[in-house]
């Protein structure tokens, strides 16, 4: 199980337990031995909910990835395909079933759709002539995955693109479903707030779903006091600015997915088996289960070195204690601590290696140049002209995503480009990367990442009133959330902070400048009575819990900033829910024509 999920202000572990229960109930429908055939995009997600050993207990004998080739031989009674509702995958499933039926036709076939059963997919299976061969078609509503004690994610990477480019609102419906599920678990949230394009429609969907569900009694006391929905389009600056926290940088450089990241193996070579070179990437799980990572993840990268040193010192001091152990009892106690100490040592080695890798990356000239260009833009320096560094990157054909990131940031900090500058950039972009990127540029314009001047948005006003730029940041002992970007405070998190104190009424004017509608209202007038689902802090007055739901993605730096706010002694705690995690690359990449 995963006890680390239950240590937050609200017991997130309950969500995982419920998902687990539902999955097992589904599997129990098929009596006897089973083979699961996985859509590879789902394996990691589901392993966060149920381990293989648990599935084995429920009669899962074999697991295969879903491929176009024939299934390996097995003598199971049931073949269960676990898949997203994606049409292309239906072809693979049909092919698999047909091939399998040619062999012995004794098996039963089933499909579990995650997270919803699509009519189109079923239609497609009919067209492919395998509909009749299927006994059960189930739906596994995996709408939220608990990634850590304070994070719930829908792990839906295409949300931003679907909503803003394809204008497909399915993700928004799923967000409302997810919020409804949270309310079912923890009680109806009394106060609703939101900023950005989709927040209004999500709020009204949530309210409708609550009514349709009917049987809930209104006096259910909520463990969550406020819901704040932030649509990514309300703050497109933050994901474009390089994250400078430990976890954020790991994501920028190596990409984290389903709590894991893969690193180059050379660094992690153990000397004992140096003859057989590891060629596979080293996969490391990054959650607060690892005590050291829990300390490091939210630190500014400049504070990571000192923390690692401190940890190394404390471990070696503990080892030294063995010399002072005289009595048998003391020796026994020392020995009993050995496993923990060894684990701590291993974790220290892992994070020292990762920190070295990140350091190499951040020391490169290109990284420093890009960072200082970003700082210039955030400070409003030279944003109205063609930027020489961007130009230089275009002429040298630097990585396309790096150039786009800077272009978009310049555009947003300048409130759109002058027509001449915009045309120049677009023209040079196409000359460098090719004509097909006319489509890329069109998509960026469609979602507002690149545009001409005009509209109510005014970066300078927003930046000043929300104090987005903070000077003299102490990266080792931060006083403000701006430490996560070494001087820039994420707009989204400032909104959350101000909502808690002194309230949004103080920033009415600014809220009007930020794109998209504002929601601010009461869902239910009920005094909140608190019972903690997890470890309660006795004696202290109950804190106000805000759930911040990011629609279109959240960055690791934003989560760190919220944790920083939770850590302040002013009685505010934050939980994060999100459609997915993003950074500049994962935000922009889907829009790049290939």
């Amino acid at each position, binding site marked *: 199980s995963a006890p680390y999920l239950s240590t937050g202000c609200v017991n997130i572990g309950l969500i995982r337990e419920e998902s687990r229960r539902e999955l097992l109930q589904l599997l129990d429908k098929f009596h006897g031995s089973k083979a699961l055939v996985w859509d590879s995009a789902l394996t990691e997600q589901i392993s966060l909910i149920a381990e293989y050993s648990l599935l084995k207990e429920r009669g899962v004998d074999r697991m295969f990835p879903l491929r176009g080739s024939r299934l390996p031989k097995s003598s199971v009674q049931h073949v269960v395909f676990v898949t997203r509702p994606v049409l292309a995958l239906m072809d693979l499933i049909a092919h698999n079933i047909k091939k399998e039926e040619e062999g012995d036709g004794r098996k039963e076939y089933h499909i579990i759709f995650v997270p919803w059963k699509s009519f189109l997919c079923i239609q497609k299976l009919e067209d492919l002539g395998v509909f009749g061969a299927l006994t059960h078609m189930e739906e596994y509503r995996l709408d939220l995955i608990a990634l850590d004690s304070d994070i719930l994610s829908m792990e839906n990477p295409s949300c931003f693109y679907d909503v803003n480019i394809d204008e497909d609102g399915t993700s928004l419906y799923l967000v409302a479903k997810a919020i409804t599920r949270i309310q079912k678990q923890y009680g109806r949230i009394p106060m609703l707030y939101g900023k950005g394009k989709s927040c209004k429609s999500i709020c009204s969907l949530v309210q409708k779903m609550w009514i349709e569900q009917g049987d809930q009694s209104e006096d259910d006391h909520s463990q969550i006091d406020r819901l704040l929905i932030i649509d990514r389009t309300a703050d497109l600056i933050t994901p474009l600015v390089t994250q400078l926290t430990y976890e954020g940088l790991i994501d920028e450089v190596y990409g984290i997915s389903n709590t894991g990241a893969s690193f180059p193996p050379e660094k992690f070579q153990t000397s004992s088996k140096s003859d057989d070179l590891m060629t596979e990437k080293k996969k490391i799980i990054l959650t607060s289960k690892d005590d050291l990572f829990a300390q490091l993840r939210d630190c500014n990268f400049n504070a990571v070195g000192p923390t690692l040193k401190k940890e190394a010192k404390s471990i070696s001091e503990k080892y030294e204690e063995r010399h002072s152990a005289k009595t048998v009892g003391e020796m026994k106690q020392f020995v009993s601590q050995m496993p923990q100490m060894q684990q701590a040592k291993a974790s220290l080695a892992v994070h020292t290696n990762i920190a070295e890798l990140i350091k190499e990356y951040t020391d490169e000239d290109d990284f420093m140049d890009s960072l200082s260009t970003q700082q210039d833009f955030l400070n409003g320096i030279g944003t109205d002209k063609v930027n020489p560094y961007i*130009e*230089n990157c*275009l*002429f*040298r*054909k630097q990585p396309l995503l790096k150039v786009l990131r800077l272009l978009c940031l310049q555009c947003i900090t300048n409130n759109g480009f002058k027509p001449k500058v915009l*045309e120049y950039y*677009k*023209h*040079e972009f*196409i*000359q*460098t*990367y*090719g*004509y*097909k990127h*006319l*489509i890329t540029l*069109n998509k960026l314009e469609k979602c507002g990442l690149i545009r001409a001047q005009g509209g109510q948005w005014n970066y300078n006003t927003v930046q000043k009133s929300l104090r987005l730029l903070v000077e003299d940041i102490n990266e080792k002992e931060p006083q403000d959330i701006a430490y996560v970007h070494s001087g820039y405070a994420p707009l989204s998190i400032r909104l959350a902070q101000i909502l808690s104190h002194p309230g949004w009424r103080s920033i009415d004017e600014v809220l009007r400048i930020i794109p998209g509608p504002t929601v601010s209202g009461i869902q239910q007038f009920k005094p909140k009575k608190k019972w903690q689902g997890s470890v309660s802090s006795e004696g202290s007055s109950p804190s106000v819990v805000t759930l911040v739901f990011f629609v279109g993605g959240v960055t690791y730096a934003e989560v760190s900033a919220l944790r920083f706010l939770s850590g302040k002694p002013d009685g505010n705690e934050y939980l994060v829910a999100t459609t997915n995690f993003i950074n500049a690359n994962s935000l922009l990449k889907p829009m790049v024509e290939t």
Partner: protein
Amino acid sequence: CHIHNSFDTFRSDERLISLHSAQENFSRGRDDFGAKMTEEQLYLLAEQNKLEQELDESFVEKSLHDTMYNLLKTNHIKRAEHLRKQFKVSDKRWGWWVRITALAEQGHFTELEAF
């Protein structure tokens, strides 16, 4: 101007037809920039086809930058100059490319790769 899909064809004659129709659509949709870019692309394709016949090297899938880069690297400076004029390449951009030529002439290929 919804006909962006028409860029995706790979056979050269089909590509020409779809580019022409894209250009028409851009003009009809009053997207001057799109129309201008499509015109440039049509012109670039014609030049690239010519180059392929003359130099026995593939050019068609390449951007203007990559085309120029290849020409300069292989010392076809006159041909590059020709494209520069035709596409009104800015002096700044040309400046970077001249450095490539200089590097190529001196045989500094490792530096070239790092460029």
